[in-house]
């Protein structure tokens, strides 16, 4: 008798779950209506980086990149990039780019500074399509190129690209 009641309860639960799930399906399908797809490799990002580096040897020092280990909201991932060596009137950053290596369009943004800036420290929020490396490159006024990168694990879905 008790098991019979249990069975009925289970059936009701299953039917109820189906009812709740059904209206969600069209929404899930709608979220797929985008031509955005993650890139298979960082080739396009590397091409943009090579163009920016323009033959210099990128230095793995002097530039810092702050990125969360987990992007729990992939549509707004906080990223901070700053030149950690001292900025002076003789030594300053001219240009800086941020690359999201596997995004459909890897170049996330470009910054340009001047001698008057007296600093090179920026933070933005990125949309990331999946787990990837984020890379930053900075060109100093003496032609040196500084390079920094970090990996971020992006929670699935909801990228909104």
């Amino acid at each position: 008798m008790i098991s019979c009641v249990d069975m009925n309860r289970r059936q009701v639960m299953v039917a109820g779950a189906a009812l709740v799930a059904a209206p969600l399906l069209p929404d899930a399908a709608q979220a797929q209506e985008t031509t955005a797809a993650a890139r298979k490799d960082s080739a396009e990002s590397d091409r943009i980086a090579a163009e920016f580096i323009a033959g210099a040897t990128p230095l793995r020092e002097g530039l810092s990149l702050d990125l969360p280990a987990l992007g729990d909201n992939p549509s707004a991932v906080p990223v901070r990039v700053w030149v950690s060596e001292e900025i002076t009137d003789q030594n300053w950053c001219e240009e800086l780019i941020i690359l999201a290596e596997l995004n459909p369009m890897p170049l996330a943004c470009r910054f340009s500074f001047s001698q008057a800036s007296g600093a090179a420290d920026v933070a933005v929020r990125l949309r990331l399509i999946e787990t990837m490396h984020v890379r930053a490159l900075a060109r100093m006024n003496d032609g040196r190129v500084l390079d920094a990168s970090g990996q971020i694990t992006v929670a699935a879905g909801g990228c909104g690209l």
Partner: protein
Amino acid sequence: MANPPRIWLSSETPAAGEIVRVRAQVVHIMESGLRLDAAGNAIPRDTLERFSATLGDDVILDWFPETAISQNPYIEFTFKARESGVLKMIWSDQNGVLAEAERAITLS
């Protein structure tokens, strides 16, 4: 303007040579051009194209966002306060200037 930019400055009266930090956010859809509408047509790209900050006659920062920048773009930057002047910030997209804001910087 319906949605003026939100702006925060670490100091409007910095000491000479002090590094001033600025945080600013503007309302913008940042449509990537990669999404499709209900009929399957691509929604045209509509992104913020440029943000520039000047102090007096000096350009402090130019920022050129692309599609990977989040909706309602947020920008944080710093500059060295060398002299008093007006910090002017301009956001623009394909339709021209979207928003402008000014803050007086007075050396203490």
